[in-house]
């Protein structure tokens, strides 16, 4: 029988971030009081990050289709057709809060997560980008945060072996207590060899791959776990540590395994690791999943079911394996020195059953965990617009030269060389346009095709007018791609905002999405993947609305591209546009 220890109290529910009515909804759904493991599972599934409960309604309005879109939002990453039988797989994701707590590790695990999203789909990562926002340069924490984040992004990407080819860095006091670290990864796969998360077949083995599970990143309710000793001399840190070496091995092992034809479905363990990955694989395939946690490779002793289900240890994957290929798969993983364990199977019950030490710790309806997640149409208002300043009311600068020097000296416009020189942007030998141009260009294999990519947003525009700011971010990404000679194909977005329960913040969110949607529709520039990061605020003050747009475009012949440098003396300058 399901053990009901400890008792679920309203405090425990609150510690899990569930509102009382959300908890009621869950109890009604399962028809009894949940176990602590089940409470952990639902808290992971129904938090903002996994359920998109505040944003789903609005995200649905974004254009996601085009003839060249192979896979839109909803999988680990978006996929577009780039011709010659090849596909480009890409996505952007935030790691804002962890990076503020521990900038180096926060950034590394952010980069690791997004790279996994891309190679989970069968693509080899060929480029990484990032968009960073820090507080004011004079804020006492800024220096430490910049140094740590930049070193972390480099530390992970350089070791993993992907060139970090572009990004943006900005500073504003509104990010003083809440920096933004958005990481984007781009990969190349064969268009007919994309891997998805959808499980198929009853009785197929569920396989755990990669690094061992530890108590990393188990949030909030750690006291709920029996083993946790509140008096222990140190509070267990919830910070995850990235291991790019393990990820590199995982990449090679996964691609080798996929090529061997053994993989039925695959999903990386990201936020709320085992819980989200297992539920998603089952729910997408209309199958139940049974897990036996005794088989999970653990790094620490005495881990409870609760801890294993919520651990966010990095560099792990979950896979449904073709049962006839077990030995081939295991041999590949052993060769790369990674853990490999069958930890469960698919069933036809549509239940998500978790066993540990012979006891059932959770037994939940698998589809409802996702489908019945709360969905909110949060109230939103549009802040009063700042009055538009007529140009004649702005005093002309005393001297243009001085004004120019002042501009060039601002942190946002300063050279970012110090940043990108810490990133290996040349590895793989395909970086045609290194950092410093309008968009980065990476040759696809031996050519002739190339990809152009960029990340853009101007938060102060979004604050002044969310709809126009959203449009502008898309338009800038589009322009940066066209400026190097690329045909813009699709975008990924990373929507960073404050607390959606505040109508004015929700207003910014809704406005920016509307603007992004309008611009993408007008430009035939669909959104194929993305990420939402809400609750970016400290002490009641939210960040500037920052919907980062990551754009990808195609160059049919990468030899034909444009760069920003003047090519000679006496050339004619032409101004295009209004």
């Amino acid at each position, binding site marked *: 029988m399901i053990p009901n220890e400890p008792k679920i109290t309203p405090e425990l529910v609150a510690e899990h971030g569930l509102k009382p009515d959300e908890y009621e909804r869950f109890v009604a759904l399962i028809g009894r009081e949940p176990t602590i493991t089940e409470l952990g599972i639902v808290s992971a599934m129904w938090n903002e990050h996994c359920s998109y409960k505040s944003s789903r309604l609005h995200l649905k309005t974004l254009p996601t289709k085009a003839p060249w879109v192979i896979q839109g939002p909803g999988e680990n990453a978006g996929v577009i057709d780039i011709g010659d039988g090849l596909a480009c797989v890409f996505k952007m994701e935030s790691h804002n809060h962890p990076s503020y707590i521990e900038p180096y590790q926060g950034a590394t695990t952010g980069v690791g997560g997004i790279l996994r999203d891309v190679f989970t789909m069968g693509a080899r990562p060929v480029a990484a980008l990032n968009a960073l926002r820090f507080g004011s340069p004079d804020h006492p924490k800024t220096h430490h945060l910049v140094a740590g984040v930049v*070193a972390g992004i*480099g*530390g992970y990407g*350089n*070791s*993993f*072996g992907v060139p970090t080819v572009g990004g943006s860095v900005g500073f504003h006091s509104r990010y003083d207590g809440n920096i933004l670290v958005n990481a984007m990864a781009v990969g190349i796969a064969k268009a007919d060899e994309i891997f998805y998360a959808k499980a198929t077949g009853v009785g197929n083995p569920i396989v755990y791959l990669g690094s061992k599970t530890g108590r990393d990143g188990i949030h909030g309710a750690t006291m709920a776990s029996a083993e946790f000793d509140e008096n222990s001399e140190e509070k267990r840190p919830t910070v995850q540590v990235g*291991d*790019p*070496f*393990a990820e*590199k*091995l995982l990449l090679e092992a996964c691609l080798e395994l996929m090529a061997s034809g053994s993989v039925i479905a695959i999903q990386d363990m990201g936020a709320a690791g085992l819980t989200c990955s297992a539920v998603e694989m089952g729910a997408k395939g209309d199958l139940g999943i049974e897990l036996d946690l005794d088989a999970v490779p653990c790094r620490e002793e005495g881990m409870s079911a609760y801890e294993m289900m919520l651990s966010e240890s990095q560099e792990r994957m979950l896979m449904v394996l073709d049962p006839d290929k077990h030995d081939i798969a295991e041999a590949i993983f052993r060769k*790369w*020195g990674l853990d490999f364990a069958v930890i469960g199977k698919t069933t036809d019950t549509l239940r998500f059953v978790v066993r540990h030490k012979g006891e059932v710790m959770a037994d939940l309806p698998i589809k409802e965990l996702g489908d019945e997640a709360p969905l909110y149409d949060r109230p939103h208002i549009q802040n009063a617009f700042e009055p538009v300043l007529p140009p004649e009311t702005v005093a002309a600068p005393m001297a243009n030269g001085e004004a120019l020097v002042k501009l060039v000296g601002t942190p946002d416009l300063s050279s970012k060389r110090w940043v*990108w*020189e*810490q*990133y*290996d*942007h*040349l*590895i*793989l*030998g*395909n*970086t*045609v346009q*290194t950092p410093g141009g309008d968009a980065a260009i990476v*040759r696809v294999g031996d*050519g002739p095709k190339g990809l152009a990519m960029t990340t853009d947003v101007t938060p102060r525009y979004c604050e002044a007018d969310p709809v126009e700011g959203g449009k502008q971010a898309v338009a800038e990404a589009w322009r940066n791609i066209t400026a190097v000679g690329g045909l813009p194909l699709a975008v990924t977005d990373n929507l960073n905002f404050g607390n959606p329960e505040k109508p004015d913040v929700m207003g910014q969110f809704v406005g920016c999405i509307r603007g992004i949607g309008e611009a993408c529709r007008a430009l035939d520039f669909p959104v194929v993947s993305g990420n939402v990061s809400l609750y970016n605020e400290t002490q009641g003050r939210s960040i500037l609305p920052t919907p980062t747009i990551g754009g990808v475009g195609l160059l049919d012949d*990468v*030899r034909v591209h444009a760069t920003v440098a003047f090519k000679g003396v006496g050339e004619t300058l032409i101004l295009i546009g209004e």
Partner: protein
Amino acid sequence: MKAAVITFPGSNRDGDVARALRQAGATVVSAWHADHDLPAGTDLAVLPGGFSYGDYLRCGAIASRAPIMDAVRAHAGRGGLVLGICNGFQILCESGLLPGVLMRNADLHFICRRQHLKVARADTAFTNRYHVGQVIDVCIAHGEGNYVCDEETLHELESEGRVAFRYCDAAGNVSRAANPNGSLNDIAGVFSEDLNVLGMMPHPENLIDDLVGGVDGRGLFESLAAA
């Protein structure tokens, strides 16, 4: 010329160097760290760039003890050619095939940038397509490229002409200012006593194409392919 590119767990420029060798006309085969032998007929063993074993203990330390390294040592002992680039250089130092160690860059940052090198010796199997004093433009990408050795070793390297490349500026001036990582005597690469083993920090394999920055790295691979 048959070149065996060795992949260690965490190698990540193995593909880049294989491409450069192939483009120069060499036959390229791959070798695995856990193998005990180099592929039959190997003329050149290549230890590529990357972060073998994450570079977690000391760069190249764990890889230098891999089974394949016994074969590499034997190959070098017979006079066979061995090239180590970046992490490969670190592995060669750790394995004792080359003297010295590579320590953290003086400013502790990983640095990726274009870098000029001055060719110090051009009468070797690795560098004969260059000329002494030639300034080439390649790139560096490392966090631990600060070459250090004791005085006696340094004296030996210098007096025996075993420095392969030095960091310099575009005009060919070798100076502290042009040295990206603090390495002794601005050393970017060194040869073994018999000039059949070369270790270097910079990445000539990423400069073999006009479209991707230039072709100054080709000389090395063309020298080798013709060896």
